[in-house]
């Protein structure tokens, strides 16, 4: 893996694109719950204060008021942290945004253990389970700033609710600025023939590091970035599995009810192959630096490489 370190995190890129779009599109507004300096929604506020509403430290009220405004035909971008949006306000999202299919889009920062340093209260490690389970919700997880910028466009331009998981810290730059993304799409970021590593978000980089490790052992891994988790690109996974005959899903999330469950069940029904899921093993993490925390909880590139090799061994 030879990628340039990112200068900014995906939350900044998403908010930056939101601010750019605000210049020509005056029809959407932004709701914040007192995290503007962190979500970077302040960028929008500085330019368009009349279209920006800071609703205070009150996620349920924020999300519900956004629903009311969206019921009037307005598109609303709600900014916040994954833990608070997807758990404290989950019922308002389910019953009053997803059920009536309203145009509320979520800038959800601090996804997974990218907020490792803040501790468990701020680590959003169940968000994908909650959001992908609700009917009508669409879910995106961009891996880098180009993907995050594109994710904003997809979210704004797709009718109905869209949830975008973003990262606290800068990672790496993977895609060209003009790379194209679409709802339900994926990117094969490394071609290989021996094992498919299906992943998303920051774990794309851990998976690429794993692929480097595997290459040293003579295992040629294919890494697919499922930046659109719902809907997701079943055709590309199917094609890849036909070739590799082995599946590893690596995600920065609880293993239970994460994307791995979705992909593995699909594979079981459509293309059964030896499969290994990597995620938090029904446990809470803890405070620490990002990489050390991934190491400790078995989500690092080294851990993925080890499990991928074991999965390949099961093929024979």
């Amino acid at each position: 893996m030879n990628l340039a370190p990112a200068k900014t995190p995906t939350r900044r890129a998403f908010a930056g694109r939101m601010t750019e779009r605000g210049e020509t599109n005056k029809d959407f507004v932004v709701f914040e719950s007192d995290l503007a300096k962190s979500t970077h929604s302040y960028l929008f506020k500085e330019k368009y204060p009349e279209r920006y509403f800071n609703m205070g430290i009150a996620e349920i009220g924020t999300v519900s008021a956004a629903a009311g405004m969206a019921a009037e035909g307005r598109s609303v971008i709600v900014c916040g942290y994954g833990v608070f949006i997807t758990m404290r306000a989950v019922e308002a999202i389910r019953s009053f945004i997803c059920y009536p299919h309203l145009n509320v889009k979520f800038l959800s920062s601090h996804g997974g253990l990218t907020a490792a340093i803040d501790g468990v209260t701020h680590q959003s490690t169940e968000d994908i389970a909650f959001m992908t389970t609700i009917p009508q919700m669409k879910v995106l997880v961009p891996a880098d700033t180009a993907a995050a910028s594109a994710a904003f466009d997809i979210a704004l331009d797709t009718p109905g609710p869209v949830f975008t998981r973003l990262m606290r810290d800068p990672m790496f730059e993977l895609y060209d600025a003009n790379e194209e993304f679409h709802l339900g799409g994926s990117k094969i970021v490394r071609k290989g023939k021996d094992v498919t590593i299906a992943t998303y978000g920051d774990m794309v980089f851990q998976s690429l590091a794993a692929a480097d490790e595997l290459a040293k052992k003579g295992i040629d891994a294919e890494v697919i970035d499922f930046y659109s988790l719902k809907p997701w690109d079943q055709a590309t996974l199917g094609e890849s599995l036909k070739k590799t005959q082995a599946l590893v899903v690596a995600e920065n999330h609880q293993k239970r009810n994460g994307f791995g469950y979705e992909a593995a069940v699909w594979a079981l029904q459509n293309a059964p192959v030896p499969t290994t899921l990597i995620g938090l093993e029904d446990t809470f993490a803890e405070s620490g630096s990002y990489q050390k925390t991934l190491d400790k909880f078995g989500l690092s590139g080294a851990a993925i490489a080890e499990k991928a090799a074991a999965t390949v061994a099961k093929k024979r």
Partner: protein
Amino acid sequence: MDTNTAGNYSSPARGRYSRNASNLTFDARVARLNRIANTMRQNVVDMVYTAQSGHIGGALSAADFVTALYFDLMNIDPANPHWEDRDRFVLSKGHACPIWYSALALRGYFPESELKTLRKNGSRLQGHPIATYLPGLDASTGSLGLGFAQAVGIAMEGKLLKKKDYKVFAVLGDGELDEGVIWEASLAAAKYKLDNLVAIVDMNNLQLDGTIDEVMPIEPVDAKFRAFGFEVMTMDGHDMADVLTTLTKARNARAGKPICILANTVKGKGVNFMEHQLDWHGKAPNDEQYKKACDELQACKELEGVES
């Protein structure tokens, strides 16, 4: 039949009752609304009896002020349910929706015959009201607290973005005030000076598990809303003259702050054996009870005369 004066739209939709014509005297308006409220109550009893399920007590306590809003005060057009300038109505205590459905049917948003489909598969009259199903519902509600917070968003849209003059009426239960989001939404209503928002609290003093005091003491409600930045008014929620006067005052207020009306009401009002009875929060009448309730409402109707 009265003429609907809302907007420049033609109004093919015709309910049994329309909005009040402005040429009636105040007393005549009150008498007319009392008659309609009786029909509203009959509808509620019919619907819950037919469904053998639903919330009758809290629908009956809200009957009078909902009638005053839909049949006299609100600027709405049943032929154009999405008319931009209409007043909005949000029943935050969504479980009382039989009263809302009844108002919409009697105003002609949908056929009255549909009322008896309440809570049945395929019905647009869901157990708790879903805006995407039925014209005239300005927000989906049923999860307590979240309707009022949506009403705040609707009022923000009207006042701050569309800059329209419409009012947003939200009906809350007194038990519903236990929900923390009510107070989150109230903070925002005051911050954004939403004087287009009128919260009406149906103070029937009973919630599912007991009296307000037994379950979670909430008094003093007036002081709480005042402290949260609201203009607070009170009314006898079953004295139609008081209801009409207070709601008119609230509708015309430009106080620079949101308005809260505390409506003192009786749960189950209008059916003697249901009044003040905790048991009638979410129970359906059996055949005998249904007949008794109908007889009582019919006697009341005959006493007040039938609208021609």
